[in-house]
Structures are given as structure tokens and as C-alpha cells.
């Protein structure tokens, strides 16, 4: 039995804690959150106890921690958990600063603990199936990737102020998809980003301009082998959470569609209707959040490397930084 503590009882902390509690062979012992009422409510719901990071890290019975606290607390908690020899599952991003993220990776390696970063999209059953088929060579060699990533609505401008900007906050997942689909070693030695171009606009909410951010963006990446990737994102899609990608290979095409809440199709006098996409990430990636934790605990058991390591977190962060600089310079092509 692995004993686990979850840091953070907010939106994503509740998801992770619920998934930990429902895994066989894993016991959720503690929930920590500075907001005492949130921690108490979540702990009571899942049969865990409320604690503090200090007490959790001093408890020898704890095998692993799940870091689901605000982004600016991640690097401190990673350092402290590594020093206490606890295995770590950390929500993305590692840190908004690449140098600090690199330090975290070094600390984890020095301590010899396992650390997985929550790029849950790699565990989405649809995306994972597409990657598996690509890796089996079913559409030949990958050549071009088109990623569409649109939120149903923009968060308040006040939230965006501390988010690091759209490229670090939102596209970090799309950069990871790019690395996973076009750069993974599928028997071809792998690949890496070579040049990157980013641009963007405020088309959704003028308040977002006032905090120095944008709400609509496009990014083009060319890899060292000449593969091409286009990412388009918006903070608003009137029809729901739009999460798709397609990858063109030498022998065919793989298309990943949106998930829908139900598979009912209605035919009537004027239309053929089906559900719009799942509302947002908590719904669309519900299974992915569960499967990434299954993968984490299986990895602890088997000692096999994780599908999303802290190095992946650092590399995605570098692309986010390059995109931010490219956009800020008015669309300069960045060499990576």
C-alpha cells in the first residue's frame, strides 16, 4: 500500500485527490491547503486527514506527494519533497521560470526520487491512441501537425495577470503535444524544435490587453528534421472546449476529434444534432487525469520511466518562453 498526501484542495487538487482515493493499492492519507475549510471538506469526503506540508514531509509513512497547489508554490514544494525523499507528482508547470524549473529537475535527480509532471493530455484515450498508432508506423513518418486548442471562455483578466501569459499558461500543453507527437523517438532517433514563430491578438476581451496578455494566438514550429507544426488557440469558442489535432504522415492521416458528453444523435425536420464538445478541461480530461495517476503509481511500482518527466516540463517551458519572446518582438522567428 502506498501512502499519499495531496497539496492543494482547489479545483485540480480535488480531481487528483478523488482519483488517488479511488485507486486500489493506494491510500490517500493527508490533504493540505492553507484554506482550512477546503482542506477539511475534501479530507472528510475522501476519508483522509488534514495536515500541513511540514508534517506530511516529516511523516515516514508517506511514500509520495501530489502537488496541486498554485503554480508559484510548485518549485518550493518540489525541493522540499525531494529533500524528504518523497516521490513527486506535480501539476504543470514546474515553474514559470526556466532556470528555476531546471534547478527543480536537478534537485529531483540528486535526491533519486521519481518525479512526474501532469501533462494529462498524453493520457487522454484519444490522443494516446493516436500517438500509439503513429509510433507503430501506421501512417508512416510524421510530417505535419496541426493543433487546435480553444477554451470555452476567457478567465478573468485578474487571473491572467499572474499566469505568465497565454503561452506559459495555456499553450504549455500544446507545446508538450508538439514534442510528444513530432519529436518522440519512434525508432527514428527523435526530433526537436529548430525555429519558432508566434503571434497573437486580443480579440475576445479588451481587459486582457490591459494586463499585457493576449487571448488569441498562432504558433508555427519547424523541427531540425524539417517537420512542421501549427498551433492555433483562442480563449473563447462559443461551441465549447475545442481540443483536436491532426497529424499528416507519409502514408496517411490521423485525426483526433472532440469528446462529447453523450453519443446521442437527433434527426428532425430541420437538423441533425449531436452534443457540443465536453464543457471544459475537467470534463474532457476527466479520464486522462485518472489515467495519469494510474501511470504514476504503476511507475513507482515498476521503476519504469514516466511518460511525462520533469525534463518534459522544462522543455515545454522553453518553447513557451521562446513563443512569448517571439510575440513580444512582434513576430520574430526564434532559433531554439
Amino acid at each position, binding site marked *: 500500500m502506498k501512502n499519499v498526501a495531496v497539496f492543494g484542495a482547489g479545483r485540480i487538487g480535488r480531481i487528483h485527490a478523488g482519483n488517488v*482515493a479511488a485507486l486500489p493499492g493506494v491510500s490517500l492519507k493527508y490533504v493540505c491547503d492553507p484554506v482550512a475549510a477546503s482542506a477539511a471538506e475534501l479530507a472528510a469526503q475522501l476519508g483522509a486527514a488534514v495536515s500541513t506540508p511540514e508534517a506530511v514531509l516529516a511523516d515516514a509513512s508517506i511514500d509520495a506527494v501530489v502537488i496541486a497547489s498554485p503554480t508559484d508554490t510548485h518549485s518550493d514544494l518540489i525541493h522540499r519533497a525531494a529533500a524528504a525523499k518523497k516521490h513527486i507528482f506535480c501539476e504543470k508547470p514546474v515553474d514559470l521560470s526556466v532556470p528555476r524549473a531546471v534547478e527543480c529537475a536537478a534537485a529531483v535527480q540528486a535526491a533519486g526520487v521519481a518525479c512526474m509532471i501532469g501533462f494529462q493530455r498524453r493520457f487522454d484515450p484519444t490522443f494516446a*491512441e*493516436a500517438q500509439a498508432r503513429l509510433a507503430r508506423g501506421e*501512417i508512416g513518418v510524421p510530417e505535419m501537425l496541426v493543433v487546435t486548442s480553444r477554451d470555452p471562455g476567457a478567465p478573468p483578466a485578474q487571473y491572467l495577470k499572474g499566469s505568465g501569459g497565454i503561452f506559459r499558461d495555456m499553450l504549455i500543453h500544446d507545446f508538450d503535444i508538439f514534442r510528444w507527437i513530432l519529436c518522440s523517438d519512434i525508432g527514428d532517433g527523435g526530433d526537436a524544435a529548430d525555429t519558432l514563430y508566434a503571434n497573437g491578438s486580443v480579440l475576445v476581451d479588451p481587459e486582457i490587453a490591459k494586463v499585457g496578455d493576449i487571448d488569441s494566438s498562432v504558433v508555427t514550429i519547424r523541427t531540425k528534421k524539417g517537420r512542421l507544426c501549427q498551433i492555433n488557440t483562442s480563449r473563447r469558442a462559443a461551441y465549447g472546449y475545442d481540443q483536436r489535432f491532426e497529424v499528416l504522415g507519409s502514408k*496517411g*492521416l490521423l485525426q483526433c476529434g472532440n469528446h462529447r458528453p453523450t453519443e446521442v*444523435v*437527433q*434527426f428532425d*425536420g430541420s437538423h441533425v444534432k449531436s452534443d457540443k464538445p465536453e464543457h471544459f478541461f475537467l470534463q474532457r480530461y476527466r479520464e486522462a487525469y485518472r489515467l495519469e495517476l494510474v501511470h504514476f503509481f504503476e511507475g513507482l511500482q515498476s521503476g519504469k520511466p514516466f511518460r511525462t518527466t520533469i525534463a518534459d516540463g522544462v522543455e515545454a517551458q522553453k518553447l513557451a518562453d521562446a513563443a512569448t519572446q517571439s510575440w513580444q518582438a512582434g513576430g520574430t522567428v526564434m532559433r531554439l
Partner: protein
Amino acid sequence: MLNVGIVGLGRMGQRHAEQLALHTHGARLVAACSVDAGEHTWARERLGVTALYDSYDALLRDPQVQANASKPSYAMNDPDGLFVRFAPTSGGIFLDCSVHDIDLARWMLGGNPKALRAFATGTIALHPGLADCGDVDNGLAIVEFEGGARALFYASRTLAHGHETSTEVIGTEGSVSVGVGAHRDRVQSRDAAGVHHRVLADFVERFAEAFQREMAAFVAACQGEAPPPLMLADATEATRIGVAITKSLQSGQVEAVA
């Protein structure tokens, strides 16, 4: 917190036991009964259940048990044909598989209309062993309901592509279809051989969330929070219709739903 005991730890029982122990808020799996020692070990090691009994009577005598979850033993759509071994006790394809669809038809047609007559036919496509107990591996049935509604059921144990439970309701102003194509995920690939998608492997995958919601509804009903959405009478009615269909398969004639 509702303390629940589970009766039977076979394939279906294990499924329900995991739901209760791990995925159902407000319920605790405290006891189980099974005649199989291996299944006792499974419940102890995987789910931490310590009160394990050999008989249903013993489980009922356990004072900590407040509710029982059970399901009659049941043969599955099985590509290996293992279901043939269970066929003599399964009640035949219509009582084993279509009973769910019959229940769905009563629900979908609105107001649980009374079934009047049934006609069924079938064929053995792949499993000749079924002939010994008068069963088939592909069955078709038509049921007439009071008020004019009609239902057509098709059950197969031999679909080459996987598990496909699909439903179509045809109304005067349109139609609704559910589950056609048995899509396992939202990946579509195109190559020189055509356009492809993966299919659902079995009912466990297709109805994973339904099993979870079913157990949550059961616990809520035991706690008096909501009336049970499905009564014993609904199950009896589905069986009654299934019996008439099975009788028709054997007689070759239209049978009244008695």
C-alpha cells in the same frame, strides 16, 4: 455511510465490488460471500474486505451489513465462445442479453407500455454447441406493445468487430440514435485501405460510467435520499417479455406475452 455486503464475486460481482469499495461515495464494502477461496483472496488483497463468507446466509447474519448488492450469474458476449458452457443455465440469448434491451424499450417508449405479443427467430452462425440447449448465437425479436408502439431487438454473440450496443428510437417528428459505430475513442485514421476507427471491446468498457452511476443510485435509495429509479417489478416485466420471446424462438409461432 452505508455498509454493503456483496453476494457473488465472479466477473460481474468483482466489478460491482470495486465500484462499491473504490468509487461510490457514502458506501463501504464491508462483507462478501462466494464459494470460491480464490475470490476471497481477491477481495481481501485488492479491496481490503475482511468479512468473507461461504454462504449467503452467513453474510445475512453479519450485523454490520445494511444492504446487499447481487446479480444473477450471467454469461457474457464472449468471442472465445466460453459462454457456450454457461448457455444451459443462462436462459437463452434473449433472457441473457436482450433483457437489457427489453427494459430499455419499455423506458424509451415512454410510460412502460404493456407488451402484448412477441415473435422471435434466430440462427447459429458460429457455435453449434448451442443447439443442444435450444439456444442461438444471433437472435431477432419483434414485440408489440399496447397503443401501437413496436420494438425490434437484435442480439448477437458473434460480432466480428467488438461490442456494439446501439439504440434507435423513431418518432413522428424525427429519430434519435445512440452508440452506432461503437466508437472507442475519437481517433480516425485514413490510409490506402480506408477510413478507420477503433471499437469498444466489451460491455465493461461501454458501460463503465453506467455501472458507477447505478451503484450511486442504489446507495442513495438505501439512504432514503432518492426513490430507486428501477423497481423489482421492472425487472420482472422485462423477464416476462423475454420469456415470451424465448418461447416464440422455440415454437416458431407468435406468442402472447402471458
